[in-house]
């Protein structure tokens, strides 16, 4: 069964090819069957493979399908690598991917681009599987770029609106900046270590590079650049909120559950490099912490339901980075998995809400929807609880592990932990702000006729609810992958610390309750003074990062492009042309047409030559 691993990406790829080649001529049920069915088949296969692998007792499994490139001492195979980490990832991708595909068959039912949508989705799943299963960095890069492409195509899925196109291009270009850094990292690794096969490369790095060596720092920094781009961390986080322009299942699949966590996967996969460069690893932690706090503040001020969730995604990935940074590798991956469940759940539920309200996304135009939309209400309740790390939901376990990992670190660990706890407090506020505003209080505007649904939309929701509640009890087989350096298990933590960690999101929920449910505290009151209004505007715009980048990069580039539209170098040749033309003008003057003038010139020349001959 294991050697069928190459079929995993092949199924969705075939689905993609069939859907593209038929160019939307197939009837919708068949499109749905191919689109969702191919991912479902992959999931079944993945489950079987995982089962066999888990019982096989081997650390890892490699299967090379064919040689991709072999040039001189460079060699890269089209080969798959299976270990605990990629097994977890592949199950998340196919499993949650399948649920989202199923949901999308209902969600997109009325869209004219039905077939196009599923072809992109299938291509995405195929590329994502290549990303996590590739045994060398080039193959990983193939998947990495492939998911970026699908993300672009799907964000701009409704292409008639130029804003969607802008968001799509922004997403692609910003992540491309990160990708480029990663590509340079690949070149550096190959130039220094002579291989891009991940396992060989890591063991070579361990033997050849000392801890803290320059190469290790450079390589891990460059890879980190790729990771922050894909995972929307500082300083490349600005694309993700705009990416919500795509259909909601896309936001769930690509921009919450799978693609944006690719950066986390990359760092976890190459964690040996980061361990060789402790400073960079610490940087990862700080990036995570700062991002999670910034995104938390921003989420507080958003009014678009999907943007709130988008910022919360950025924030949660910040937690994963924090976990990676402090060396709690398994905890980060664990959080990746639980996050996939509850964030997919939240996005899909928000999709149901949006569709029921005929594409209304402003939470201040919703309200009191809990009776009208019971399934969404339940989904949101469970999802929000998991997101805020309510005790014994899945988010609780994973976030707990990350924070404990941070605390275990000597020195700055306490600060990181404190920041994380503070973040959890904000998570509580913004999550339940959304929850209360949408499902409680007065109805503000839209009244849904009925909740859209059906088994293929509600089924995935229920399954994800179960996942969001119970995934925390799963045990991920990651010991073999991160077998070194997870010593914090033994660390003793006092009950007080635990109390803090449980209490902070609860306090957050309480604050949110006071503001948005009971009304004992009023937002309007807070907004009274100019400073808070200013802060609100600042946070609402995502800390002015877009504004800053526009001025730092976009406008100068556009300006340069505009002034040099005609190509300066071409103009230089134009000068040459003008010069010869001017010379021509000058010589034309001498052509007077008067015979005596010509005779005079001849004599002048004669005199000159004779004089020269005589004098010299």
């Amino acid at each position, binding site marked *: 069964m294991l050697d069928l691993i190459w079929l995993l990406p092949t199924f969705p790829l075939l689905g993609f090819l069939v859907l593209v080649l038929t160019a939307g001529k197939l009837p919708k049920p068949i499109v749905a069957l191919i689109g969702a069915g191919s991912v479902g088949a992959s999931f079944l296969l993945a489950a079987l493979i995982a089962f066999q692998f888990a019982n096989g007792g081997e650390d890892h499994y490699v299967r090379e399908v064919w040689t991709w490139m072999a040039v001189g001492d460079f060699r890269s195979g089209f080969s798959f690598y299976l270990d605990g980490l990629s097994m977890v990832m592949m199950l998340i991708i196919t499993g949650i991917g399948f649920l989202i595909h199923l949901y999308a068959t209902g969600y997109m039912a009325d869209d004219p681009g039905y077939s196009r949508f599923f072809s992109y989705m299938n291509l995405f799943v195929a590329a994502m599987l290549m990303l996590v299963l590739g045994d060398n960095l080039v193959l990983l890069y193939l998947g990495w*770029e492939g998911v970026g492409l699908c993300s672009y195509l799907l964000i701009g899925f409704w*292409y008639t609106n*130029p804003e969607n196109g802008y968001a799509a291009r922004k997403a692609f270009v910003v992540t491309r900046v990160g990708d*480029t850094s990663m*590509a340079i990292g*690949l070149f550096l690794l190959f130039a220094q270590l002579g291989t891009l096969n991940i396992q060989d490369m890591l063991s070579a790095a361990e033997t050849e590079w000392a801890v803290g060596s320059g190469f290790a720092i450079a390589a891990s920094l460059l890879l980190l650049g790729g990771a922050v781009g894909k995972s929307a961390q500082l300083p490349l986080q600005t694309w993700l909120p705009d990416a919500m322009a795509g259909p909601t299942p896309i936001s769930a699949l690509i921009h919450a559950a799978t693609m944006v966590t690719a950066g986390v996967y990359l760092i976890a996969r190459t964690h040996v490099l980061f361990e060789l460069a402790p400073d960079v690893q610490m940087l990862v932690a700080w990036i995570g912490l700062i991002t999670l706090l910034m995104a938390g503040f921003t989420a507080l001020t958003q009014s678009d339901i999907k943007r709130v969730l988008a910022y919360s995604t950025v924030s949660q990935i910040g937690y994963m980075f924090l976990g990676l940074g402090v060396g709690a590798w398994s905890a980060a991956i664990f959080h990746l998995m639980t996050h996939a469940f509850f964030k997919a759940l939240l996005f899909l539920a928000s999709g149901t809400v949006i569709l029921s309200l005929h594409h209304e996304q402003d939470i201040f135009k919703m309200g009191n929807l809990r009776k009208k939309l019971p399934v969404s209400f339940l989904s949101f309740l469970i999802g929000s609880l998991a997101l805020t790390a309510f005790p014994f939901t899945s988010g609780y376990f994973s976030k707990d592990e990350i924070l404990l990992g941070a605390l275990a670190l000597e020195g700055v660990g306490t600060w990181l932990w404190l920041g994380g706890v503070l973040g959890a407090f904000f998570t509580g506020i913004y999550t339940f702000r959304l929850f209360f505003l949408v499902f409680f209080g007065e109805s503000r505007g839209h009244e849904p006729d009925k909740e859209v649904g059906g088994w293929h939309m509600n089924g995935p929701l229920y399954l994800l609810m179960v996942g969001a509640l119970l995934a925390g009890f799963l045990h991920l087989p990651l010991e073999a992958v991160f077998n070194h350096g997870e010593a914090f298990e033994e660390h003793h933590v006092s009950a007080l610390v635990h109390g803090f960690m449980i209490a902070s999101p609860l306090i957050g929920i309480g604050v949110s309750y006071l503001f948005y449910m009971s009304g004992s505290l009023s937002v309007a009151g807070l907004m009274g003074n100019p400073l808070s209004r200013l802060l609100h505007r600042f946070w609402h715009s995502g800390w002015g990062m877009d504004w800053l980048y526009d001025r730092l990069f976009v406008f100068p580039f556009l300006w340069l492009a505009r002034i040099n539209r005609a190509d300066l170098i*071409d103009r230089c040749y134009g000068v040459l042309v003008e010069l010869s033309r001017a010379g021509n003008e000058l010589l034309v003057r001498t052509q007077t047409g008067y015979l005596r003038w010509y005779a005079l010139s001849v004599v002048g020349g004669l005199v000159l030559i004779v004089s020269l001959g005589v004098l010299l």
Partner: protein
Amino acid sequence: MILVALIAILFVGGLLAWASERINPALPKYLALLTILLDLLLMTQLLQAEPDGAWLALIDVEWLPRFGIGFFLAADGLSTLLLLLTGFLGLMAIGSAWEEIKERSGFFYFNLLWTLAGVLGVFTALDLFLFFFFWEVMLIPMYFIIAIWGHENKNYAAMKFFIFTQVTGMLMLISILVLAYFHYVQFGAFSFDYRDLLNVSTSGRLEFWVMLGFFIGFTTKLPSVPFHSWLPDAHSQAPTAGSVILAGVLLKTGAYGLIRFAVPLFPEASLAFAPVAMALAAFSILYCAKVAFAQTDIKRLIAYTSVSHMGFVTLGVYAWNEQALQGAVMTMLAHGLSAAALFMLAGGLQYRIHTRNMPDMGGFWPRVPRMATVAVFFSIAALGMPGLGNFIGEFLALLGAFKANIPFTVLATCGVIFAAVYSLWVIQKVFHGEFRNEGFEESSLADLNRREMVYFAAMMIGLVWMGMYPQSFLDLSAGSLNNLLAGTQELLALAQE
């Protein structure tokens, strides 16, 4: 012998096509198609040929023995790859001209086939005199193609193309003559034979200038900044088939020249010059990507992207190690297909709506879904998506170049960001957004027909093949590139002693 046949068939086919116009104006295109197919068939023979030393096929006849000029044609793996590319794109060019060229079709196909014959000659000639002869042969018919069947500003563009290539060709001729004279000084006889000239020891300051003659000649054809400015004009004015040949094949002769002649003949000077060349390449990539983004004429835009992509070739060649060279070769092949396809798309658009101005376009996707899908495919190929040929080329070129020069490679790598910016911008302007109609017949905006789909499908399959299983191409060129590498290393080692 097979090489002579390949070239002669094109020459004769061109003459026949010209003559046949008198019988029936539709006849030349069928004759041209037949000629190209015959040539392609012969080329497959070349693939099965038993290698004779380093060469798959070779013919060496005395021509003007007094001056050491021979009729010396030879093909190794590298040449064969490029010959196949030429044949394939010749086929594509005839396909794209099929409906577009209605006036004086006989003379058109004559010029087309003669250009191709010149290109085949350039890819196989190993006598430098003969090489220069073919270099000129491919130039003049191309001038006619632009000047006669071009668009509104054709005379300017054709003249610019001609002057640029002719002047720099002259520099190359001077270098060739100087080289032959060196041979005379050192061995007592003139020789234009590539194998002899490799042995000419050309050290000292003069070597640099002679090398520069070759370098400028080839980089103008490539082209690289600052000799690129003929290309946007030539492309925007040329008929579609002309653009296909120009972008797909003619530019590659420059790259081929760098690999075959410029570096191996002057290993020391090239080694010293490499940082400058790589800097030029990196600048070329970034600068032209930026200028491309600013264009409103879709063909000009694609032309600038061509310059930008050819920068990777220069970078790869001057890194001069196996990965980088293979990357350069793969880039040549993949760019040949992707740029030709993009020009065919732009030409198809112009044929339909009679404008190349992008602000007049928009929202074409629902009207021409097949064309849009094809356009997205080739744009993505051009921006270097892994899994397609261009990625393999650029990746290997950069991978190799990184070993040779880190700063310029890093700069060049940043070029792929800009590649994404302009590629996606084109898609946005033409196919996405609200439908815009600025003064063209809506009914004329028809989707790709079956004939066009066949051509595009062939190129798409080619690119996927290159992207997913590049080994079939890499294996073919590996032998010749390793020979070249070994040769220069030997010379360098000798020079160091």
